[in-house]
């Protein structure tokens, strides 16, 4: 078996057009679902009547069904539904909007749980301290609690984003022309499927790896207050290396102070 490298280069080139589509789906889904996720998490934490039940039901519904089923349902339900309202024009809508809908609905469920656990990691003493300096609960939430919760949430948001990127490849089912869809179409001419899929594989790897780096930098930036005068220089830039990142610790605290940190 030999790989048709010329074809691979060609596919790689045409599939480039799919990258913005994929990123678009991911970004739209993330930007809409992040604030809604926070809101839903708050509804669950503060056990707001009726709404809490709704959120619980929604999260189970989304998490309990395969994304492919969600895609198929949205893609068959929405156009017919819109057909009733706006008539034939419903079938001219760019399918990417359906992709936005499915992946946003999906991310909301994931991020609700991410934020729920993150908000619960913030000590309730932080809220009390806010109240005792005269701030309102709402002010304390925005200025003290949420920034801290976001930091605990970053690794899990990164996780959710990676799943989102990979899941977005299923958008081809809705005839969205993302990376996967373009590669499949190209391959269909000469049945060079393996070559096309390898290109897809590499593209997703690059996108996911870039996302990882971005989230690593975000995490480092946001959690600067967590480090006691200690610099950790460690992201493993080589994806296939088994070497652990080297950690160097600089500190100007005395031994007893450090022990005290550990105890706190």
């Amino acid at each position, binding site marked *: 078996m030999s790989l048709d490298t010329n074809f691979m280069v060609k596919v790689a080139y045409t599939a480039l057009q799919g990258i913005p589509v994929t990123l678009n789906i991911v970004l739209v889904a993330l930007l809409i679902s992040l604030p809604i996720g926070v809101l839903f998490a708050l509804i669950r934490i503060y056990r707001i009547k009726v709404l809490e039940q709704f959120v619980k039901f929604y999260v189970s519904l989304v998490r309990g069904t395969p994304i492919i089923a969600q895609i198929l349902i949205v893609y068959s339900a929405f156009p017919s539904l819109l057909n009733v309202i706006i008539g034939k024009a419903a079938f001219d809508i760019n399918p990417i909007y359906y992709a936005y809908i499915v992946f946003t609905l999906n991310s909301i469920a994931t991020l609700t749980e991410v934020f729920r656990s993150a908000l619960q990691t913030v000590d309730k003493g*932080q809220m009390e301290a806010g109240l*005792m300096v005269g*701030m309102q609960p709402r002010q304390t939430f925005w200025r003290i609690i949420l920034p801290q919760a976001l930091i605990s949430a970053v690794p899990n948001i990164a996780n959710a984003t990676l799943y989102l990127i990979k899941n977005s490849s299923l958008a081809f089912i809705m005839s969205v022309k993302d990376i996967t869809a373009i590669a499949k179409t190209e391959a269909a001419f000469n049945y060079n499927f393996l070559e096309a899929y390898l290109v897809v594989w590499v593209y997703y790897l690059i996108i996911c790896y870039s996302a990882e780096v971005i989230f690593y930098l975000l995490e480092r930036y946001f959690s*600067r207050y967590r480090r006691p005068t200690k610099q950790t220089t460690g992201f493993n830039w080589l994806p296939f290396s088994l070497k652990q990142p080297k950690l160097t610790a600089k500190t100007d605290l005395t031994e007893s102070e450090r022990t005290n940190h550990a105890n706190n």
Partner: protein
Amino acid sequence: MLTIEGLKKSYAGHDILKGISFNVNKGDVISIIGPSGSGKTTLLRTITTLEEADGGHISFAGIDNDFQKLNGKDINTIRRNVGFVFQNYNLFNNKTALQNITEGLIVARKVKKSEAKKIALEALERVGLTDRQNHYPSQLSGGQQQRVGIARAIALNPQVIFFDEPTSALDPELVGEVLKVMQDLANSGTTMVVVTHQMNFARDVSNRVIFMADGYIVEQGSPKKIFENPSEERTKKFLTDILSNV
């Protein structure tokens, strides 16, 4: 200045406070001592509205009302006129030492940024931490964190500052620096109510000691009276127990 009458609080059927009455005058430094579980911390938390009381009356800062009838505005008034120093510091983890102090001034009191910074630096100077103003809580030792906690309370210039076992979470060698700051505060006329296990502080710094047990105030009086000549059997036993452990 602050008068509490018949304060009651129970958790899940357990009565924690069974009718507490006492008053605080301007300039008082009151130590509340007593065995653990006697309701000392709960007392502070109910007065400062961190916990809802089940009964009792408060007159403070122009409010003269039953605890259960306090509305949102009353609660804001109380919170604006008290300071609170927590056992585990509860500094805002995402703010520097300086920002911890300016936060309440700017957000709650609407003080101008430059003015807030000036007040905060003065407060930091009083606790001897001017050089740590840009450190985050995680970069400070426990004793330093608690001193920032105290600076945060005094910067708001409240009528009375409540201290909830301010040195209990500290390593023994760090207790001294916090007590020193509190002593300076007391000497400068700050009104303080301190729940403490530091008997030296209760005896040497405060002008009144309240001994609590099982949700009641068993007795109160001058440190001299409580430590040298307690009238209640319960007080004597507690003091003997605690002093024999030192």
